[in-house]
């Protein structure tokens, strides 16, 4: 599998660390209602689709940037890659 890095071009996955469901970027804020439920869902109940999955990859053995990769978990085909800090703004 190769990931099309927005800055560095096509890189092999063994340069990356996989972190999981990209919704991990959306950490709940403390002192909300039902915060235990929210953190439980945030940490443990991640998406696990049979199809397109939006996920975080860290370019550890490269430029150490975080990427959001859209990938088909059935075929490993990668649809889209962006820098995670673009998403966070």
């Amino acid at each position, binding site marked *: 599998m190769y990931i099309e890095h927005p800055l560095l071009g096509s890189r092999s996955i*063994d340069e990356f660390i*996989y972190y*999981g469901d990209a919704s991990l970027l959306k950490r709940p804020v403390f002192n909300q209602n039902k915060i235990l439920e929210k953190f439980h869902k945030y*940490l*443990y109940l991640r998406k*696990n689709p*049979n199809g397109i999955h939006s996920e975080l990859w860290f370019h550890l053995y490269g430029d150490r940037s975080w990427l959001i990769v859209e990938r088909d*978990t*059935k075929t*490993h085909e990668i649809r889209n890659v962006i820098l995670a800090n673009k998403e966070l703004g």
Partner: protein
Amino acid sequence: MNYNFLKLLIEGLNNNKGWLKTWENVNPKKHYDIIVIGGGGHGLATAFYLASEYKEMNVAVLERGDIGLGNVGRNTTIIRSNYLLKENIPFYEFSLKLWEGLEKSLNYNAMVSQRGVLNIFHSDYQRDAYTRRGNSMILNGADAELLNVDEIKRMYPFFDYDNARFPVKGGLLQRRGGTVRHDAVAWGYAHAANKLGVDIIQNCEVINFRIKKNKVEGVDTSKGYISCKKVGCAVAGSSSILLSKLNMQLPIESHVLQAFVSESLKPVISGVVTFGAGHFYISQSNKGGLVFGGDIDGYNSYAQRGNLATLEDVCESGMALMPMLGNCRLLRTWGGTMDMSMDGSPIIDKIHIKNIFLNAGWCYGGFKATPASGWCFAHLISTGKPHKLISDFTLNRFYDGSIIDEKGQGAQPNLH
């Protein structure tokens, strides 16, 4: 049909013409008391113990493909009970005991071979960790022995003992661990369950549940609607997909794990060996192929095939332990979809629908658990109460913080 020595002799003389089917392939009835979804090891074992131990007489296993083509037929066949935590060891030790008597209770040769599982260590720190693990095993009724380098040299003279980075310092041996012919486990349970009246229904995918007043009334399948009183879900890597029909999200990610087999060699590796400085384990099949594996690939996948980066990593680890592997050619590789739970331990529990039960989260270690998982899941389905060996394998543990994390990795499924 009964398998025995006399039958073997007669069939040998009779050109093998008189063998009957191992199990009958049937079409579903309209109604069952209990439907088990998934004809892998766990589903078939559950059905067998439902019939044999809990006297449930109207049980069906629904399998979307052919039985035995899921992870039960894809794993590297290692059985052991060398766990660390008290929530886990008694369960896996019970499983190992069931393996020891399995062939008799199933009347099927599953080639259970207690050839010993040896975990090598390479540093003082690892010696401490394995000593602790061994003690924990002994305290919980399993067997464990700490071996020094000379003892290991006698068993396996070909390790790279003086490797500058990963010198072999000793190992933890569980003599009762070993391997089992994985396909024969599926066939054996199907055979024995079928003999007790369980219907094994292949090519029958469960597409949806019909729920009324928080209770399941039946399931829609590719072979039509089947009503039932209870449902047990044992679909391993497909658990998230199946349970999403009930709007449930599970603390599980599906990952791919690969296995590798070399060309056939003369007997060289007598037991199961694991490398402590990387992730690598190896044994030799009865056909002579070296069967080995390592880490999961590490990303969500339902593809049942992995990537070359993992292959390279596994082979490098193998070469670090036994350089002679480099002379050997790789024959086959394949992958299976693992139900990686968030703490690395399984879930056998009730869910919010009263009469549906869940068996999932086996990670890459569910083969060895097959008999105990089937037994305890059958107990839960039949009596509605958790068996004491699985009382900690709850779904709620992620909410209340009583997770069972052998490795202490936290909620990172690809590190368990």
